[in-house]
């Protein structure tokens, strides 16, 4: 019996910690699953899976040091991480050169390119999910002009661009966009201006849960009565925590998670029971992603030859994950099909809870 080490290079301190913990725990639970059955059976050898978790504090330099340690010291061939865009770009020279398969959350488009064959992204980004949802919202809610606030960072800027295009296509306009420094807590002046432009809706995609919550609350305080929506970034519970039930009532959110789906619900329950914290919305993707990685190893019959594992991973299709059926896409957008496509939903918040109002695929909603 042997040990298979998997690295979790995620953010566990600072503001990205919610995501990082969600990812790390997903990997741990996936490992627990196979360890309980006596280990992962690859080509006749049983491997006990061990997750080695390091914190990158959402910083590129830290991530590089941690990646070096994982790759050269711990000799891992698989890394779950990173959370942030800058860290993934910073560690790719190491992971790609050494053939380390990496599963990142980082939203940057540059994370997936044809010359980075070992990087995969098991969660959909705005680029994937925005269009169908926006089409649906524009159609059903009669939204014409939209205002949006984004953090002035890589993710915020990328999302702003994607969304502007998506609204345009849907026949509405992203009329007012504002970028702000991350630590900002007061949005009243920005909202004052946006609302004064007479927008029908406010879009919150790209903001951290705390920020999104503050924006919702302050917008409602200012008497904004239009639609508030968030077409990406599952974090409804956190937003409700910050803004309160009253302010979030009727808000539309993106959700990857249908509590009606048995396996998904089971995962959430297990998560909460194990860690005694609410589940982060990205966690299920990385659980599925890790599981797919295991399957790829089994398909390839090796844990050492990551080239073969990579090929096997790329070959998986119609994977039955806890969130639904999953496939690799992204050839046309990124030049490499390393982007996972999975079903998702539009939910309305009522009484602090998500209530699914539309089911979507990349083709469209309802």
């Amino acid at each position, binding site marked *: 019996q042997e040990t298979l080490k998997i690295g979790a290079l995620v953010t566990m*301190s*600072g*503001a990205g*910690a*919610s995501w990082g*913990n969600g990812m790390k725990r997903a990997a741990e639970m996936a490992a627990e699953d196979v360890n309980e059955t006596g280990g992962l059976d690859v080509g006749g050898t049983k491997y006990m899976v061990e997750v080695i978790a390091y914190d990158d504090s959402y910083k590129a330099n830290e991530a590089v040091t941690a990646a070096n340690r994982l790759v050269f010291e711990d000799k891992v061939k698989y890394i779950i991480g990173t959370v942030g865009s800058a860290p993934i770009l910073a560690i790719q020279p190491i992971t790609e050169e050494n053939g380390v398969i990496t599963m990142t959350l980082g939203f940057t488009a540059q994370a997936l390119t044809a010359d980075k064959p070992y990087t995969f992204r098991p969660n959909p980004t705005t680029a994937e999910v925005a269009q169908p949802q926006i089409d649906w919202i524009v159609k059903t809610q009669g939204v014409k002009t939209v205002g949006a*606030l984004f953090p*002035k960072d890589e993710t915020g800027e990328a999302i702003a661009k994607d969304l502007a295009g998506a609204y345009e296509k849907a026949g509405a306009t992203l009329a007012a966009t*504002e*970028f*702000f*420094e991350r*630590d*900002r*807590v*007061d949005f*009243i*002046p*920005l909202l*004052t*201006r946006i609302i*004064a432009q007479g927008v029908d809706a406010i879009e919150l995609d790209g903001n951290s*849960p*705390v920020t999104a*919550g*503050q924006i919702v*609350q*302050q917008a409602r*305080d*200012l*008497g904004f009565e239009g639609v508030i929506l968030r077409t990406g970034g599952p974090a409804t*519970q*956190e937003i*409700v*925590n*910050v803004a*309160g039930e*009253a302010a979030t009532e009727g808000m539309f959110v993106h959700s990857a998670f249908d509590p009606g789906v048995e396996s998904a619900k089971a995962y959430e329950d297990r998560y909460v029971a194990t860690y005694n*914290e*609410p589940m*982060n919305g990205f966690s299920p993707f990385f659980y599925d992603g890790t599981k797919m990685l295991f399957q790829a190893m089994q398909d390839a019959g090796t844990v050492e030859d990551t080239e073969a594992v990579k090929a096997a991973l790329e070959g998986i299709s119609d994977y039955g994950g806890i969130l639904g059926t999953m496939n690799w896409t992204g050839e046309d957008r990124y030049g490499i099909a390393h982007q996972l496509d999975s079903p998702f939903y539009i939910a309305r918040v009522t009484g602090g809870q998500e209530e699914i109002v539309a089911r979507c695929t990349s083709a469209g909603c309802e």
Partner: protein
Amino acid sequence: MSFLIAQSLINGVILGTLYLLMAIGFTLAFGVMRIVNFAHGEFYMVGAFCALIGVTWLGLPFPVTLALTIAVAILLGALVERVVFRPFRNDELSGMIASLGLAMILQHGALILFGPDPQAFPALVSGVFKWGALIVPKSRALALGVGIVILLIFYIFLMHTRHGRALRAIVQDQEVAAVFGVRLEIMYPLGLGLGVALAAVAGGLMAPLFGVSPFIGATPLLKAFIVVILGGLGSIPGAALAAILLGLIESFTSSFVSASAADIVTFALVIVVLLVRPAGLLGRAEA
């Protein structure tokens, strides 16, 4: 347009006062005790968690919670003074760096205890005051009112009582102050305790507005830095002026130019002020 100007003015003044409240404990530690307290934001965070525990876990009324928060914070501050800052009383730089260590301990301690996610904090009041088109959210008005009262009490204590005077004296010459009967072993912990208490009260008051999580300390620290630089070392009126100015700049640039411009303008102003008036807007030059 004139509506937007009036609303921006109101927003700016309110925001400035909230910033003042966030900053004032730092001003005390810095201007009076000569500690550049990088853990200030974490004490704000601790205050917010105290309020959270009081209101949601223990179900206490908000005023009671606030009073308890102050008590806890004074004790915490006194303890921290004893354990961390005492050896650095005459060494500003080492004290400053020790406070960085303290900040790490507090933030990650909170992370271990409470997890990274923001916590739900029930709104105390909801709705807005309206005058024509002008709007003031009631939640802010409340924080503002309580904040101003606390600031006034604090100002009177520091400037017009003998203990306040003693606090200001010990930093300049603790030996001589002791010779005249000031009890250092009480005054130092008290001074820092008050600074911490002010930070914590700010955290408690603003928890309903801005949420509670282990990471909320960054903003108050940044604002406190700016307010202190602009306002001048230990000058409370200076801090007040600077905070309002900061609020107005943020409000007006955000409303009329763009949000990212607000920060650049703020920092550029900080640098210009320091160059033109090194002691800050109302600060007095070092003797």
